[in-house]
């Protein structure tokens, strides 16, 4: 009985995974190979052409999603790393307060936050309207409905997921190890490059994973900030599923996206050197 206890304790989570992850995945995989329509019903025909058709029609949006997701992730890394670094090394006794501030936006709904960005960025809104009124911006200046607005929104919304894992990794770096590098003739820059950065890579890896995947798949930012010219794959899946009731295409696109992301992550992990990442993490 004793020896079974850990397994019994893990049982609820396994059940949860089975019911809410495996079952829907299998169902969706099955739907992605069916043909038919919402009125007459769908039947399994092992129609692999669903995939090629969907990809043919929506490859632009898929590539755009990867591009926007990648750009937003890069922006988050550039903004988030210094913030995490500053909190970890210079935060002093106020560390937890700064972390709380980073998390504060989560207390407001994701959609509402994005809508307020729409409000802020609108052509004649509180910011640009005022600047235009003062003649500081040309009248036809606009940000909304551009790629910049979508990438900006994604960056803003997912930034905490980049900062937190990097912070955790940096927090674990012993300041004396940095001092040791400086004692061994490394400049501050060299100490960072040779010691701090390599030791924080597991956090960077986790941060990129936790932001790139949801940012690429996100439909909200493109819908609210992107107008019609910046549709991402998430919007297409949503429309196909909820508006067109074309379940097979929506499912096929979802699986394609998942496959692309998984392959991307695998390549990324290899490029970064999984061995190094895991070793540093296991320290």
């Amino acid at each position, binding site marked *: 009985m004793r020896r079974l206890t850990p397994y019994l304790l893990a049982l609820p989570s396994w059940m949860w995974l089975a019911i809410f992850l495996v079952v829907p995945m299998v169902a969706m995989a099955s739907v992605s190979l069916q043909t038919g329509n919402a009125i007459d019903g769908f039947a399994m025909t092992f129609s692999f052409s669903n995939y090629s058709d969907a990809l043919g029609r929506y490859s632009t949006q898929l590539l755009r999603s990867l591009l926007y997701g990648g750009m937003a992730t890069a922006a988050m890394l550039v903004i988030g790393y210094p913030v995490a670094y500053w909190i970890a090394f210079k935060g002093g006794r106020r560390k937890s307060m700064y972390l709380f501030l980073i998390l504060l936006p989560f207390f407001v709904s994701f959609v509402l936050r994005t809508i307020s960005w729409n409000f802020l960025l609108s052509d004649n809104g509180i910011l640009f309207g005022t600047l235009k009124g003062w003649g500081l911006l040309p009248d036809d200046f606009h940000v909304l409905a551009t790629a910049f607005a979508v990438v900006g929104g994604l960056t803003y919304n997912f930034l905490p997921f980049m900062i937190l894992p990097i912070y955790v990794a940096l927090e674990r770096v012993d300041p004396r190890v940095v001092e040791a590098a400086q004692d061994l003739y490394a400049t501050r820059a060299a100490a960072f490059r040779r010691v701090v950065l390599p*030791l924080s890579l597991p956090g960077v890896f986790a941060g990129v994973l936790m932001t790139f995947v949801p940012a690429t798949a996100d439909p909200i930012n493109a819908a609210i900030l992107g107008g019609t010219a910046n549709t991402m794959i998430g919007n297409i899946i949503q429309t196909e599923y909820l508006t067109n009731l074309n379940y097979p295409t929506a499912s096929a696109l979802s699986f394609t996206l998942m496959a692309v992301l998984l392959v991307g992550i695998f390549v990324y992990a290899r490029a970064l050197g999984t061995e190094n990442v895991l070793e540093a993490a296991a320290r």
Partner: protein
Amino acid sequence: MTSAIELDDVVKEYLSHGEVVQAVKGVSLDIAEGEFFSLLGPSGCGKTTTMRMIAGFEAPTKGLVKLHGQDVTNVPPNKRDVNMVFQSYALFPHMSVWDNVAFGLKQRKTPQDEIRRRVGEMLEIVDLAGREKRRPREMSGGQQQRVALARALVNRPRALLLDEPLGALDLKLRQAMQIELKRIQREVGITFVYVTHDQNEALTMSDRIAVMNDGLVEQLAGPREIYERPATAFVAGFIGTSNLLTGAATGGTLKISGGRVMVPGQDGDVTVTVRPEKITIGTEEPAAGLSAVRGTVAEVVYLGTYNSYAVSLADGAEITVFQQNAHDATATAERGDSVWLSWQAQHSYVIGS
């Protein structure tokens, strides 16, 4: 001898919770080339801060730091020709032993073949040849310690700073490393500055010791001098065990409860220290000319090589006596016995004389 490290009235102040705290209150040191110099004191005495100012991690609030005659007070650590062995070793966890040791040479853009030769040689000296590819966490504490030592020494610094480097090791290993460190120091001929709170370590290895307390140097002298002739009551109490006796002396004799202490040439208020191993315990009244005190044995502790007696005097004060187990393991006196303690006049050391 030329001086390797000079501190000139160095003060370090911190701001802590809005209040200025003086960690170091004016320390002047002159450490000679090739010397094994220890900074000894309890935690919080300022010894580590003093060392960090030599390394360049802290800038003194006042005063000067000189290395080989050159003022380096405001020179950053990466431009100082000293290296440090950190208390917890602070090895680079993501690098192999080889890369750890080669780090400093690489930073100084040393040619590849010279790096290879010097790192190889250094790993021989610290007995780690064949373990170049290991990661620090795959090694024992003693091995990590030697990596840290090699990583610093391979750069041939003008001085090596060691911050309680043996603190994390167990007793046997610590004793072995003390001898090892001394050997390496003789071999490479580099000035060692050694920070420790362990008086045995300092006494065993050092040429000179600065005993620090509360941000100041209480005494700066060789191990024997510090042990035999402590300058202050603090030093007497911190180094080894000692018995402190105070009172007013008249004509070279200090009357205390239950006896007399010979303090030749002293008159007036004195503080006398007597080391426990200088005292003889017996049942017969000692001869005239010896210090002699009567008391009752309150405790006997068997410590292997010697017995430790706590003898209480009539006024409640206690004197500690060590007696070597030279002949047999039976104690001279039992608990509750009435005994005479005696020692020669020269072993009553009057503090500050």
